[in-house]
């Protein structure tokens, strides 16, 4: 809750600066297009003890393409925003023990499986978001810039699926009867929240007047699944680093 409050306060500050800036000057904007790669994971900030081992991980090819705009606020300070198409995904194979899960049927809340799973889990995630960042940028010299702010994202296309294998479930919980599982598929794509928000932090290095490279951290504060969904009973969040290359558009 505190984080959300701080983020909101920060955004107000940013918007306020834009307003102040509009009255002063109107020609201090920079417009850029960028491409990049997202690397990261959908993960809880701290792994629960039911996750015993990460056996394999692949960040998948998750590109981003976007447009960004910077508005001068005061000497060395800018306000940045834009629109970005972000793929955020991963492939992970992990070993879990006594992992609580509850899978609701589509036919009504009364029906569904609830219990714990021990075994191997393989998950593929590949979500497509439309991201709107808003941040303050500090450019002390010619080369380096530092960004801090937040982002809001709309989910355009979800994908969260996988399978469990080589293990067993227990009906109801640890004391329920044990049922071996060779292979069972799951697809929780349509359970994902339609939006995401979080913190944005970045470092950018200018490579001359047109090109620049950047590393931006997008730290999701919003749970991937609503709390009402208990199929994956841990608070998964988007944790991504974007490595980008930007090209400055000429003045129109």
């Amino acid at each position: 809750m505190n984080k959300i409050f701080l983020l909101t306060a920060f955004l107000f500050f940013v918007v306020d600066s834009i307003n102040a800036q509009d009255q002063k000057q109107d020609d201090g904007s920079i417009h850029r297009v960028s491409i990049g790669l997202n690397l990261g994971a959908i993960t809880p900030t701290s792994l629960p003890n039911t996750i015993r081992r990460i056996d394999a991980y692949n960040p998948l090819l998750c590109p981003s393409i976007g447009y960004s705009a910077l508005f001068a606020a005061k000497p060395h300070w800018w306000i940045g925003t834009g629109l970005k198409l972000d793929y955020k995904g991963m492939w992970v194979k992990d070993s879990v023990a006594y992992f609580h899960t509850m899978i609701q049927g589509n036919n009504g809340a009364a029906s569904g499986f609830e219990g714990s799973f021990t075994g191997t889990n393989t998950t593929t995630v590949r979500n497509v978001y439309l991201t709107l960042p808003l941040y303050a940028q500090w450019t002390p010299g010619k080369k380096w810039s530092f960004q801090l702010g937040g982002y809001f994202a709309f989910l355009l296309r979800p994908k969260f699926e996988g399978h469990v294998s080589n293990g067993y479930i227990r009906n109801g919980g640890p004391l329920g009867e044990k049922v071996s599982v060779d292979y069972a598929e799951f697809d929780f794509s349509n359970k994902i929240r339609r939006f995401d928000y979080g913190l944005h932090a970045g470092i950018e290095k200018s490579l001359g007047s047109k090109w620049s490279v950047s590393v931006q951290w997008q730290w999701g504060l919003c749970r991937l699944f609503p709390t009402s969904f208990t199929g994956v009973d841990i608070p998964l969040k988007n944790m991504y680093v974007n490595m980008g290359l930007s090209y400055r558009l000429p003045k129109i």
Partner: protein
Amino acid sequence: MKQFILVISLVCSLTSCIKKAPLNPEADIETFTIDKTFLTGDVVIDQANRKILLYLQPEAYKNGIVPKIVVSNGATISPASGDSLKFGLPISYTVTSQSGINRKSYDVVVVMVGSWTFNFEWWGLNDPNKYEFPYGDDGSQVWSSGNPGIAITGVDKRPDAYPMRSTTDGYLGTKAAEIVTLPGNDVSKMIGIKIFPGSLFLGNFNSSSAMTNPPAATEFGQPIVGHPIRFTGYYKYAPGPLFQDSDGNTVNSMTDRCAVYAILFNGPQRLNGSNIQTSNTIVARAVLPDQSAKGDFTRFDIPFDYTAGALPGNQLMLAIVASSSAEGAAYRGAIGSRLVVDSLRIIMQ
């Protein structure tokens, strides 16, 4: 380079925080072993109902037994494995998990089939899954069904959400066993099961293989003493409208059929859905020949057909199996197929 380090540190921060393994919260009796010569049928650990079911030779019942018990890793059991058991008073085992938090009690039940007449008048209700099961006319609990397996997929907790249940539409008395083929649900579809064929059988349901090898989960047979010659009873049957294959595709040329049969075989190992037709332990069969629709209760009286050369041993077992879809073991059948059986009897020489 900087970017590379950032990414590496991100990945490391995720993988390096694996926490200490939790203490085992499980408290199962995993195996319960007695010398086979003391048994008329293999020991059953009914995990869903927390019972140890024993099928004992009269001598073993009289003198007691010394079981070897294996429990969940790290768990403890009282009384201990290797302690002798005397029968007469109620016996139960308590298992405490390694974590110390969880405790599970198993009641020891000595099962004897005293009467081979089954009128399906008395029914019990499983808690907490709320499926029904019939008691034998002598009060013994010898019947099982696919219901415990379907319970795992989390169907609604009420008797008529399960394929096998009681009905007042009986031939004699007030009740009979109703066996219906139902549609699968979202969880069963995760493991490729599109229908729940109804079944009722003498034996036990072993939940542990319910998802990996469902036919093996239905363990058929109860110990029998004597020489069965005929299998009699009443049934009626209405096949569902659309026969479907295991992928859920309608097969227009097919009509569902019911299956009712009794198999006599040499124990103490039970047969299951994968070998009930083919096992070389089979001594005799009595199979209902007419598997088609019957609007009214129809009597059957089938002689046991003894396999030439098969020798009945001294650990004979008998299975009675009834299903609303004859090919249900392969998940082929019609949703809505309904079989009702009543007054089943094994006639001895």
